């Protein structure tokens, strides 16, 4: 990927109970990447390191071809960030909050901000403490977008929100990349959201990147396979992960389904094999099981 907007290289962060282990991935311009992983896998830590909100114990982050050491202000001016929790002055109004935040940014598109608020049905005169969780997230997104960032980074933007609001947020993310110079990185444990709109998917489990690829590649290569008991042997089992056994046989996920297909077609076996599409969720569960 030559035209990367974000490059993460061997990023490392040590805590007493948890280590982020040499995380590397790249996000090209014009696309959405979803960061998938179970709770506590290191999604937020990764995002905070990318935002330079935490100090790493090694590795590099390169954004717009720049690094934080020499260009922190420029990078932050070109990124829009929506954190896990929306922290505002609770007693102040939405209008006041906009005024307060806009003073820190050179480019502030008031008109666009207002149009986002009316689209999201967030009233400017309301106090922050009168807003629901979903409203606060939408306000956070509107504030992040009002400066037309090239890179939008969101940490679990849709978690804990109802499907109506989730859909509104996903639609906005798709609208952002109508401009092919812009990119979005968002983390979620709701794989359904990622499956719909993400172009690239990065799986993080136990502080490690286990898979980072184009979504279409993942969905093409990884399949769910069910096999009748008498067809199962060690060779086949080695090609599958997340294997579940029951009375009838085994079910698991594989990225070698063409290999498995070949093995059986050489033996002229057609019965007792079922290959179907795997969801990002099923792949996640299998990868987690494999890590344990």
């Amino acid at each position: 990927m030559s035209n990367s907007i974000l490059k993460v290289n061997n990023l490392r962060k040590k805590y007493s109970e948890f280590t982020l282990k040499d995380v590397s991935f790249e996000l090209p311009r014009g696309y959405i990447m979803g960061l998938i992983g179970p709770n506590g896998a290191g999604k937020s830590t990764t995002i905070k390191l990318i935002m330079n909100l935490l100090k790493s114990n090694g590795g590099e982050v390169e954004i717009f071809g720049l690094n934080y050491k020499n260009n922190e202000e420029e990078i932050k001016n070109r990124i829009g960030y929506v954190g896990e929790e929306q922290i505002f002055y609770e007693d102040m109004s939405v209008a006041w909050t906009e005024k307060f935040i806009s003073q820190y940014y050179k480019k502030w598109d008031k008109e666009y901000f207002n149009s986002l608020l009316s689209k999201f049905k967030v009233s400017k005169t309301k106090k922050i403490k009168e807003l629901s969780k979903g409203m606060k997230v939408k306000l956070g997104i509107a504030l992040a977008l009002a400066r037309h960032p090239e890179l939008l980074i969101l940490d679990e933007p849709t978690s804990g929100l109802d499907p109506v609001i989730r859909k509104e947020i996903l639609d906005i993310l798709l609208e952002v990349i109508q401009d092919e110079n812009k990119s979005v990185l968002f983390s979620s444990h709701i794989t359904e959201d990622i499956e719909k709109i993400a172009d690239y998917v990065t799986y993080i489990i136990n502080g490690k990147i286990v898979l980072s690829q184009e979504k279409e590649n993942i969905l093409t290569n990884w399949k769910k396979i069910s096999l009748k008991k008498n067809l199962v042997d060690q060779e086949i089992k080695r090609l599958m992960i997340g294997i579940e056994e029951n009375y009838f046989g085994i079910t698991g996920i594989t990225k070698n389904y063409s290999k498995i297909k070949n093995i059986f077609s050489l033996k002229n076996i057609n019965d007792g094999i079922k290959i179907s599409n795997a969801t990002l969720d099923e792949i996640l569960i299998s990868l987690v099981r494999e890590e344990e």
Partner: protein
Amino acid sequence: MFISISNNNPDPLYKQVKDQMKNAIITGELKEGDALPSIRGMANELKISVITIKRAYSELENEGYIITRRGLGSFVNDIRKDDLRREKMGEIKGRLESLLEDASKFDIDIKDIIKLLKEMEGER
């Protein structure tokens, strides 16, 4: 052109888009030279990822249904009806083979199927 995406459809999303576009071209709803929506525009309309539409477009291009001109966008290609017919016949043959295999489990052979087809012909 009408494209609708369903999560309940076992086909992957890119294939749903591809097949429906193909259909619009074959039926003549989209004609040679017609401009197609941009990849990003289509993704935004259908609310699915850009990479999914990209795959649908590139497969349609490889199969000769559409043509992409750099900087101008994608257009419906000049498709040859007899090529399409040959391709479709191949697909139908494949489907009949698996149907015959299924039927054979119940001792229904090809003659029975032919008989059935003839009856259906009479009804039409």
